[in-house]
């Protein structure tokens, strides 16, 4: 657990990439689109940034390669990525951290308005 805590906080693109993979495996372009959607169009990843992050996450063992559940039109198997067990744990830990942060901020906001 301490090991996971030492990895937090995650940078926003990392968090969004992990979040985009939480429903299941996705290929590179689907991750890019999901990150854009999840951030309401605020975080737009370039291919270089995306794959740099994917390489780092692979090295860290937070994601692994998987078979793409949606093959493209040519029917050729595309490379996809999915969360590993440590990846799920890190994502869950970051969500918990953010929830706590939001709770503290909301409590403070309520106090300020009273």
């Amino acid at each position, binding site marked *: 657990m301490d090991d996971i805590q030492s990895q937090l906080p995650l940078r926003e693109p990392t968090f969004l990439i992990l979040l985009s993979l939480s429903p299941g495996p996705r290929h590179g372009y689907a991750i890019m689109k999901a990150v854009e959607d999840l951030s309401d169009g605020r975080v737009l990843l370039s*291919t270089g*940034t*995306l*794959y740099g992050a994917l390489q780092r996450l692979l090295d860290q063992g937070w994601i692994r390669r998987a078979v793409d559940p949606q093959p493209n039109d040519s029917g050729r198997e595309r490379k996809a990525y999915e969360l590993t067990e440590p990846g799920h744990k890190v994502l869950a830990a970051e969500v918990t951290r953010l929830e706590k942060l939001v709770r503290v901020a909301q409590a403070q906001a309520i106090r300020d308005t009273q």
Partner: protein
Amino acid sequence: MDAERKFTRLYGWLLGFYPAGFREEFGEELQEVFAAALQESRQSGRGQRWQVLWRELRDWPGAVLQAHRRRRRGNMVPNETIPEKPLPLVEWLAALVLFVLPIASLIVGSAASLPQWFVLPLTNLVIGGAASLPGWLEVALVLLFWGAALFSIGLALFRGLPGWSLPTFGFVLMVVLVFSLYAPFGSWIYPIFRDVYGNQLAWSMPVQAVYSGIHIFFGALSLLVAALLLVGLLGLLPFTRQVWRRVRRDWTQLSFLLYGGLVFYVVLAFDEYRGDTLWKLAIWSSLAVGAWLYLRAQSPRSRILALIGGTTAALLLMALAKWVLIPYQMWPVGYPYSPSEESRWLETGGTLLTWIFFLAILVAPMFLARLFPPADPAPATQEQPAHA
């Protein structure tokens, strides 16, 4: 559409600035994603397409630098998290042929030859040999052994000399090195050894021990240098270049190659010995177990530990065997060694020295890998198992 093709070509050119390992692993995907982004932007208008291009150009220098930084950092530590593909059964069997064949042939040979006897440790009990085998069975077994060896070599060639086949090179190198001692050019490589061989008995024991130590040291060093030259040479040939690349990515493969040399060293070490059959069986079995553990190991550290374990068990058994067996030898007068107490100490001590020097050359590739990091680190994918 033409413009898109031009942009895709330009993008492909820009990819050339990434490290080769990164390109190999992600290049195709990067191009696919870029093409998809460009295609989608076409439907949203020209402005959107320029946004995609601007984003790519803006992030490109940082992404390239980041990838190069990661490559350099990746070289500092062995990649412990490479997931391994299990070796197919047929390759397992082919990989172990080199280690199992001597055991099988020794068992058959002992059963077939009548005047075999064993000297067991502690009890010094002498056991008679078994009965000879029928002729047809001997022929069948010889064919089986040759078939297994040829099958292993053939499969290794067919599969592009994968990591599991490298010990065979070590075995051949050891044979070549040993015979080079007695070849005309051997006198140039080992000037002192050829000239003095057979005269050591005239020397005092400390001088003999030093001679033996130097001999063993140069033998181990020669094996390491020969292995490096061989792997380097394989790297120059188009058909075998991948062997060099794999060794650069996983330095334990070079150690595994050297480990194969020990299989022949057992034959050499017990040259002119009698009563060594059980010992050799135990020693070759230790080497086989080490090889088996190596092939099963998931990380470079456990791979090298498997080789160190196999080498240690084999050479300590060999030292013990010599200590026990020498008093029972009947070497002729004038032979460089005699079944004396002196020979007992020298042979046993020499084997222990061999153990130390061999461990040194087994771990040497690790230091060489740190001194000369590979240009491209191992991609952390399932496509490149370390032993394949």
